Every structure is written in C-alpha cells, then in structure tokens.
C-alpha cells in the first residue's frame, strides 16, 4: 500500500511539474531591449547614395530584428579623425557590429583594433579600406566598373575617336583599379586614341574646358570618379558641341545631365544593396556564420535609352519625391 501511495504522490508531483511547464509564461529571447544594435557609420549623410544605403540597411535590420543606429562623423574638416572617434564612441555604446562607409585615406587602424578586441565585426560599404580588421568589404567591383564604363564609351562613340581619361586622385585606389581595366578595354580598340590620362586638380569645369582646349578634337571623355564626372558634366553644359561623356554616378543630378546630353552614360552601383547586405552579413558574422571577405555588388550602365525602364528606374531614381 505504501508503494502505491508513494507512486501516486510521485505521479501527482510529476503532473504538477508538467502543468507548470505547460502554463508558465515563456519569456521571449528577442525582446527589443536585447536586440543587437548594428551601427551604420556613413561618410556623409548627404546625397542619394547615403540615403539608399540607409534604406537598404533599415530593411535588413527589420528582417534580422536588429536595431539600426545611423550616424556620421561630425568633424567635416577632418572626417577621418572624426570617423575614428565616432567608431570608438560606437564601441563604447556596445554596438554589436559596425557598417562603415570609409573616408578616403583614413587611418582607422586603432578603431579597428579596438573593434577586434571587443569582437565587434566591422564591414565596409562602397569604398574599400586598406587595413586589417575588416570582416567583409561590400561594394562594386572597380575593375568591372572600369571595364563597363570603357565599353559604354566605345558603344556611344560607335567608331574611331579620340578620348581623354580623367583618372581621379593619386590616392584613390578605386579609381586606379577602374582606370586599369578601362585602359585594357580601350587599348584593345585599334580605332580609338587615348589622348591623355589626367586627374582634375581643381575640380572645376573651367579646368575641364582648359583641358579640352588643349586638343584639336576630342570625341569622348571617360571619368572614373563620381566627383570628376559631375565636374566634367558641368563643363559639357558650357560646350557648344557635344562630346561623349561616360562616367560614374552623378548623384541626384544624374537625370538632368542625362536628359541634357551632358552625360551620355554612367555606371551606377547599388548602394541600397550594399546597405542591405551589410546588415545581413553583420547578422551572419554575429551568429558565427562565415562571411566573405569581399562581396561585389552589381553595377549597371545607365543611359537615356534605359534610364526609364522599370528595372532601372529604381536604380536611377531611388528616392521617392
């Protein structure tokens, strides 16, 4: 009888345990307070590129149930220094990951070391960073961009011609990579003559006009940086004759330049995809997944013929007005 009583007591206790297990409130492990914060440190918050990166990052953060903290370096005079400081501030706030749109020629090594010590993955978007400690670099393949731009120029010229290559600054590694691949494509065309390869020293349309004045006949210009493209486009607006200009992204004025034939074609990257993939890869890195050291986003050549096609409209006109 005693055995039966003990057995019954055991059953009752076990039943109580199961009831407790069944009706106990389950505490969610992904409350907002506990959600990881991923910081997006932009080089600037002005322009469509920054806005697209933010939008893409925001969508991915929502999907990954992460908090997105967007910020920029305050010190416009020495952005690099400001970016490093801002990174340190973000690390002090215990962010889980940092998406960085680096400023050219910056020394962020200390901040990257600090991030590595805190085991905070740092991912770069767009521009590459020549430093250790970057978990993943997401951006356009500059060699592909250069080749695309060169082929677009050849297509627009549709025959023999003389072109000038605006090469970008000496420290601009991305521009150098584009130039290299562009030269390869252009030099392969026997009908094409490269008149010169030069950077713009003053970044003014006047400099461009002076440059053009130095040559008897120029059929085309290939610009390998965004800023140079806009400067040359402005100069084209002042020319009475048409010179074929192929360049990089001119930002929000790209449609105007294209409509006015100041720019014939431009190669656009996908900053929205960079922002989106940046957060996705950051989440993967935090989860212990393997993330690629380098991920190349697609680039497209946009001209007046395809700019308004549905598949390109979002790229060429990303911002809803």
């Amino acid at each position, binding site marked *: 009888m005693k055995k039966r009583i003990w057995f019954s007591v055991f059953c009752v206790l076990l039943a109580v345990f199961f009831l407790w297990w069944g009706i106990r409130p389950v505490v969610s492990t992904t409350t907002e307070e506990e959600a990881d914060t991923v910081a997006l440190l932009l080089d600037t918050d002005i322009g469509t590129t920054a806005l697209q990166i933010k939008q893409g990052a925001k969508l991915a953060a929502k999907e990954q149930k992460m908090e997105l903290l967007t910020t920029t370096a305050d010190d416009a005079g020495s952005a690099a220094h400001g970016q490093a400081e801002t990174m340190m501030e973000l690390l002090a706030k215990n962010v889980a990951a940092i998406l960085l749109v680096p400023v050219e020629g910056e020394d962020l090594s200390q901040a990257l070391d600090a991030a590595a010590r805190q085991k905070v993955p740092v991912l770069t978007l767009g521009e590459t960073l020549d430093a250790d400690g970057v978990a993943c670099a997401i951006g356009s393949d500059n060699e592909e961009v250069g080749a695309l731009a060169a082929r677009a120029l050849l297509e627009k010229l549709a025959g023999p011609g003389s072109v000038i290559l605006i090469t970008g600054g000496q420290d601009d590694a991305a521009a150098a990579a584009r130039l290299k691949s562009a030269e390869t494509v252009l030099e392969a065309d026997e009908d094409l003559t490269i008149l010169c390869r030069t950077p713009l020293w003053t970044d003014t349309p006047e400099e461009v006009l002076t440059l053009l004045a130095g040559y008897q006949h120029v059929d085309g210009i290939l610009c390998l940086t965004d800023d140079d493209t806009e400067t040359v486009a402005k100069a084209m607006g002042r020319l009475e004759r048409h010179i074929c200009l192929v360049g990089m992204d001119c930002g929000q004025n790209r449609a105007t330049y294209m409509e006015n034939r100041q720019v014939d074609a431009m190669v656009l990257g996908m900053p929205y995809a960079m922002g989106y993939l940046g957060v996705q890869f950051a989440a993967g890195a935090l989860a212990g997944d393997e993330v690629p050291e380098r991920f190349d986003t697609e680039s497209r050549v946009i001209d007046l013929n395809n700019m308004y096609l549905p598949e390109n409209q*979002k790229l060429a006109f990303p911002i809803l*007005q």
Partner: protein
Amino acid sequence: MPARKKKSRGRSLQMVTTSFFMGGMVLLLLFVSVSLVTRLNNLLEDNAMERTRQTVDQGNASLGVYVNEMLDTIDFFGSLVSSAQDVSSEALSQSMAFLQSSRKDVAAMAVFSPEGELLASTAGGLSKSAGEVAAFGWFLKPIHATTATVYFSSPYVQNIFAGQYAWIITLSRRVEYQLDGRRETGVLMADFNFSSITSLCENISLGTSGYVYLVDTETQLVYHPQQQLIYAGLKEENLNAVKKQVFGHCRDYFDGRDRLLIITTVDYTRWRMVGVAYLDEILSIQPELIRVSLSVLLAGVLLSMAVATMSGAFVSKPIRRLEQIMAKVETGNLDISIEEQGFAEIRSLTHTFNHMLSRIRRLMEQIVHEQETKRLHELNVLQAQINPHFLYNTLDSIVWMEERGRRKEAIVMVTALARLFRISISKGRNMIAVREELEHVRNYLIIQKMRFTNKFDFVIDAQPETLDLRTIKLIVQPIVENAIQHGLEEYTVDEGLVEINAYLEGEDLIFRVRDNGAGMPPEQVESILTAPAGKSGIGVKNVHERIQLTFGKRYGLTIHSVLDEGTDVIIRLPMLREASE
C-alpha cells in the same frame, strides 16, 4: 495448494481496474487533447487568416479611398477645364494651382491638345516635344477612348517636365476644353506622388516581417518594399502564386518559410494588393498551444495513473482482506467475523460471507454436538453393560459358596449383586446421587473382595454434603475395577487397599480412587486417556470421555501413579444438585 498457486498467478482485480481506468483515461485525454488542439489550431489559423485578411482589406480600403480621392481630384480638375472659358486663361491656371496646393500629393496637372501640345500646366514647361508626349501610354489611351474614363499608369519617373523627375502615378482622361472659342477634346493628366501609396502600403503591418506589395494586371510589380533588391537580383518574389488569383488567399513555401498570401483587387486601378504574412509569425501562439495541450495531457495521464492506483487499491483492499480471511477459514479457523465496511457491494459480500461463516459454524457445532451426544449415548450404553466375565465369575463364586455350604457368604454376594444391578439400571436415569454411586461401588467391592478372598481391603469415605449431589452414574466403578484388575489382582501385595473418597473442592465434586497396587510408569499413565479403543484401560477412558462430553474439557480424570507404590485417580465433576440436573 496447486490450485491456490494457479489462482495467484492470474491478473489481480487491482491490476485490471487500474489498467482499465488508466487506459480509459488516456484514451479519453488523447481524444480530448487531439480534438481540442486540432479544433483550436484550426480556429487559430482561421482567426490568423481572418485577421490578416482584415488587415489587408483595411489597407486595400484605405488605398481605395485614396484612389477615390485621386479620381475626385482629376474629375474636379476635368470640370474646371471643361467649364473654363479658355484653357489658356489665367483663371484656369490659378484654379489649377489652387487645386494642386490643396493636395500635397499632386505633383503636376496638365492639359494637352490632341497632338500632345501642352495647353495648361502647374509644372512649367515641357522637356519633351509634343510628339514624344503623344507617344506615352497615359496619353494614347484616353485620346482614343470614346468616354471620359480615367486611366491609371503604373508608377514611373515622370520626365516630361523640365528638371522634374518625380516618382508618380499618372491619371489621365479625355476632356473637352475651350480654346480660342473652339470646343476641342484633349487629354487631362494629373501626376500623383507615388510616395503616398507606398506610405499606405508600408503602414500595413502583417507580423514582424510580413509586407504588402502591388502588382498590375500583367502581374508586374507596381510596388514592393524590396523592389530595389528584386531588380538587383538579390531578392525574389513568388509572383506565380498570385498570377491566377484576382482575390482570395493561398499559401506558398518561399525562401524557407511558409507564407500566407492574401490577394485583393484595388478599386478602379485593377491592381492587386498582395499581403504576405509569415505563418510562423501570425501563428506564433501555435507552439505554445501545443505545449500547453501536451502538458495538460501528460499531467492528466499522470493524475489518472495516481487516481487509478489509489482507487484500485481502495477498491481491492476489502477484497484482499476478505481473501486473507477466507484463507484463514480455509485452514479451518471458523471463529472469525469480518467487519462490514467499505462499498455497498463489499459490505453485502462481507455480510453474506459472515452469515455463511456463522451458518457453517452452527452446522459444525450441531454436527459436533450430535456426534458428542451419539458418542455419549454409546459410552453410556457401553458403561451400563455388566461385564459378562464379572457376572459369570460372581455367579460361579455364588455357586461355589453354595456347594461349600457357605450360604451366608453366598447370600451377601447375591444381595450385593442385586443392588449392583439395581443401581446400574437406575430406572434408565443417567444421573444418580453420589450416595447411590458410592453404594454401587461398595457392592462391587464387596463382590470382588469375596471373589478375591479378602486379598484386599477397601475404604469408602465421603463428605456428608457430597452424598446428595448428583453425578453421572457408574463412573467410579470402572476406576475401581481397573485398580483391582491391574493394581491388586496382578500384583501380590500383602494387604491391598482401595481407598475411595468423595469430597468438594471449591465448586467441584471430587471422587478420589487410590490403591497401593503395582502402579504404572508415566508413559502408561499418559496413554490411558489417549489410547485408541480396544487397548487396556478402555473403561477408564470411557469414563473420562463421558465426563468431558457431558460437562466439558475442564472436567474428567487425572491420574497420578508411582510404579510399585500405587495409583491415585481424581475424578472431577461439577457440583450438581438435584434441581440442576
């Protein structure tokens, strides 16, 4: 015993009741849990689907209201143009500007001639030629229409106005206007910022990661929150699932997750709004429901096990008790009575068993009594019979005395024999007075003494108060006979003596018969009262049995004997007076 072992190997009542109860409970709980979970699950799914559908419907209704407002706006714009005295008048321009300022979502409004020339606009001049304008779909459809139907374009970047590249939806219709005194038919268009529609869609919440997208009649994306990623090839949308459906709902498995697709048609536009909800989000309570149900099921099973075990034990306990008592009865112990307790059936069974036991006991007692009575009767009859040897020897002694002329002694012997017979008969009574019993013994001793030529002597001494007490007749004579035959006759003593006393000891009447004969060894003393019939001392044993059968085990004979010294026999009887016979 084998039958008992076989019985014990069978299934116990407790086991059977426990098993049936538990089995029944488990089946019942399973049935209830499964049906409840299934039903609740269905309700949950229906509810989640209904909730999602309502959310999408609500979003669609909001979009419908907005589209209606767009239609009202363009209709109003159309009425302004139709009623204007001249389409190029300043008054119309002002009205158009006022109308646009009242609707912040209106990007531009314009009136075109049938050739595509701009007649009036709120957005300044054109960057396109009339021919280029006339080639747009939003222009071609109304210009070729016969009625003033409003046409909706898909969202696109407007590029006909200089320096303006807004994402818009163009609504257009044919319109009659007055120009230079002529009534003509042209095209009216109004561009509405697409951001208003995207805001409406973005505000529709379908779980954490659910969303809404719009497709046109060709199932081309009009709006999608991940449109950039889709065009960039980084994301996909399963448009095949919604291709065939104008409205309703369906499910698909896409990108590793089960999705619920709610499809509705947006009024006027013929667009379809597709709400995408992830089942793991809208049915997030489902695992909890299953967990609760599982825990209740397990707890129920365990509780039923506990209840079944205890109830089985509770039910079988009185039966087990009954079984144990029956086992005792089986061993012959009938002096048992079971307390009636527990369930009515068990009480009834116990009552019946007790009744049966009582009846068996009575029957047993009756049988024992009958047997004892029969035995007593037999013993009495046996005891009453005069030993034929004794009679023959006595009569032979009398003859011998007559022949020898010892007439006087013969008369004494005949007289003693006659009295012996008289008391033996006693009118058929079994109980006689102590006086008569002693008289009977005296006559016997007289005869035996004469027969044995005074080889022994005897003394009879009785307390006077014992003489009128009652006793079973003929109980002393067999003891005396035994003393003479085995103590004195076979043992040649010089002066044999048989001493008979009657006295009271407490409430008992004692007869004491002592002789100084051969005596007996202890083992013989023990065997006298227990020896089987036919052995020596049968008369003594008969006396003992008669007393015990008549008065109980407390009474009877006690024999003390010392070899070569003599035997002392105590006959214990209850003190019976004549009235209590």
